[in-house]
């Protein structure tokens, strides 16, 4: 009986991470919130969300997937890692052009790094889900 319960719990633990990975990607801190780590999740959401919104406010541009241009393509992947923030911005028509202004350059970096930081959050949420962290 104890072995069967442990097996079921193990299977449930093995199945859950896929959902958590998607939630964590879509919403920065979402993976933590999903697992009831309210403080950490809220802190990550506010931090990464702020960075993303500041990037938009500074007029940063999103990278575009460009065959043959690895910098642009990797930058696009980085932007994509922001999940719903990026998708919503694109859906709502945000499309800043390339600008010589320093603020816009910072904005572009803020947008990119917000996505990259979310990758760390996704990995942390996964570690919590599989029991490597509490």
């Amino acid at each position, binding site marked *: 009986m104890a072995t069967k319960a442990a097996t079921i719990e193990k299977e449930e633990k093995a199945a859950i991470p896929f959902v958590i990975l998607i939630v964590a990607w879509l919403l920065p801190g979402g993976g933590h919130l999903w697992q009831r780590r309210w403080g*950490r999740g809220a*802190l*990550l959401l506010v*931090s*990464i969300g*702020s*960075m993303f919104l*500041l990037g938009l*406010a*500074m*007029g940063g541009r999103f990278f575009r997937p460009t065959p043959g241009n690895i910098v642009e393509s990797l930058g696009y992947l980085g932007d994509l890692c922001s999940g719903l923030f990026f998708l919503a911005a694109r859906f709502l028509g945000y499309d800043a052009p390339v600008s010589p202004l*320093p*603020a816009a350059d*910072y904005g572009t*970096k*803020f947008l990119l*790094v917000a996505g990259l*930081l979310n990758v*760390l*959050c996704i*990995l*942390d949420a996964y570690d919590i889900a599989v029991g490597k*962290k*509490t």
Partner: protein
Amino acid sequence: MLSSHFTAALIFAAVTSVVFAVTSKDTDRERVLYGLWVFGLFLVVSLGAAWVMYFIHR
């Protein structure tokens, strides 16, 4: 929007430090200390790099 490059660097360092601290450490105390440490390092390195570039430019 930004008053200076330094302001942007401060904001960047603050956000990155928070994320590093939350995802790397296990207890709240460790997270706070590590976050402050990383933030301080960001400031030291960015200011140091700025001075190095200044003297290279001269």
